[in-house]
């Protein structure tokens, strides 16, 4: 038996502690120990973006990230976006443009679009497409997602 180790990190702004085994990944950790299901393992291969979480300010695939590696890190999940009881501009934009159908891929898209707009506040179509190549939507809401990104960019500027 390989022993669990204790790690400390910040989860959505709050300091937390968890016991993890070396073979656990970040999605397993967030679901099993913190009840956070926004990031879900889907392809399990880094391709689809459903497991997106932000580690030290950078988007990563939680399915390909060992839980042990977030020791000491700042982790942000989709659950933080409406923490103040109010939806974020990106969340609002997804609703207003109906940029989802079943909604399974939406948490990942919303987090990635938030990152995209942090890096490129006024993105071109090309920038949007390149940034989101790693996010797949089985319901094919891609045109609406493009609209949502543009609307969110406007909202963020107005805010």
């Amino acid at each position, binding site marked *: *038996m*390989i022993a669990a180790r204790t790690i400390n990190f910040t989860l959505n702004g709050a300091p937390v502690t968890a016991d993890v*085994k*070396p*073979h656990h*990944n970040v999605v397993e950790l967030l679901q099993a120990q913190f009840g956070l299901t926004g990031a879900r393992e889907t392809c*399990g*291969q*880094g*391709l689809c*973006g459903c497991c*997106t979480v932000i580690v030290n300010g*950078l*988007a*990563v*695939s939680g*399915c*390909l*990230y*060992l839980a*042990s*590696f977030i020791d000491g890190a700042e982790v942000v999940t989709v659950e933080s976006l409406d923490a103040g009881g109010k939806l974020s501009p990106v969340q609002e934009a997804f609703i207003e443009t109906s940029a989802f159908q079943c909604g399974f891929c939406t948490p990942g898209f919303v987090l*990635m679009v938030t*990152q995209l707009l942090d890096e490129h506040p006024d993105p071109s179509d090309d920038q949007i497409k*390149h*940034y989101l*190549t*790693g*996010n797949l939507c089985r319901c094919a809401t891609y045109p609406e997602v493009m609209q949502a990104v543009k609307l969110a960019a406007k909202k963020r500027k107005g805010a």
Partner: protein
Amino acid sequence: MIPFDLAEPKSLSEAIKLLDPDDATVRPIAGGTALMLMMKAGVFRPQKLVSLRKIESKYSGIVASHDGLRIGAMTTLGVIERSAEVRKHAPVITRTMITLSNVRVRNVATVGGALAHGDPHMDLPPVLMALGATITIVGPKGERSLALEDLFSGYYETTLEKNELIAEVHVPSQGPKKAAYMKVTTGSADDWPALGVAVVMEADGKAIKSARVVVSAATTKATRMKSAEAALAGKTVDDKVLAQAGDAAAEDAEILADVRGSVPYKRELIRVYVRRAVRAAIDGQGAH
């Protein structure tokens, strides 16, 4: 994934001591993006992984000097993509990053992992080889320097000993050289390549002095196409010279069939894309 042990040494030398020259189930892990895929698929079942993530920070940065770049093996592809120094000294690398996997993978994957994995489908090996990169390898007996083209020995095989680590990559400045990388995908636009072609040339207008042509993905390993290089050296580019270079590479390449294409199909891709890559480099179009 099956359980394994994880060591997190604080230095490169400590990491080397933890590796075992005779045990392939003990392996270094950097970003983990390639290893996690293999572990999830069950094709790699480690006893112990030795994480390089806590070793000295000098191995995860980029230092530029007058003759080129020194890139620590633990530098992520995202950092390389966003580096102003890389854009200045080797813009072909910056352009290559845009279609290399996706943002999240680039934020985690390291250049050391991209090279040590020996995966012929990766985009950086051909580009760095064409630029004439060398790597610094550290093992129990000390340090050695190796031309990157001598690292790859076969399909997912390298000349690294099991207790050796890549510490740094040295990339000579592109300078006035003309360069291009073409990635050919036959599935989705951002799929792994069916073919990669990297070209770096010294040329005065259309007069080529010397050329390095590297083909990957279609082949068992990233390979310099010396016959194509010879067909270009000392020539002035025209349709005939381009055709000769494409034909030479297509004849010489050791091609592997897979889901992205058969041997004859990939041979034809090489013939066409070596031509296009040379022309793109000469025209200053770089990469796509």
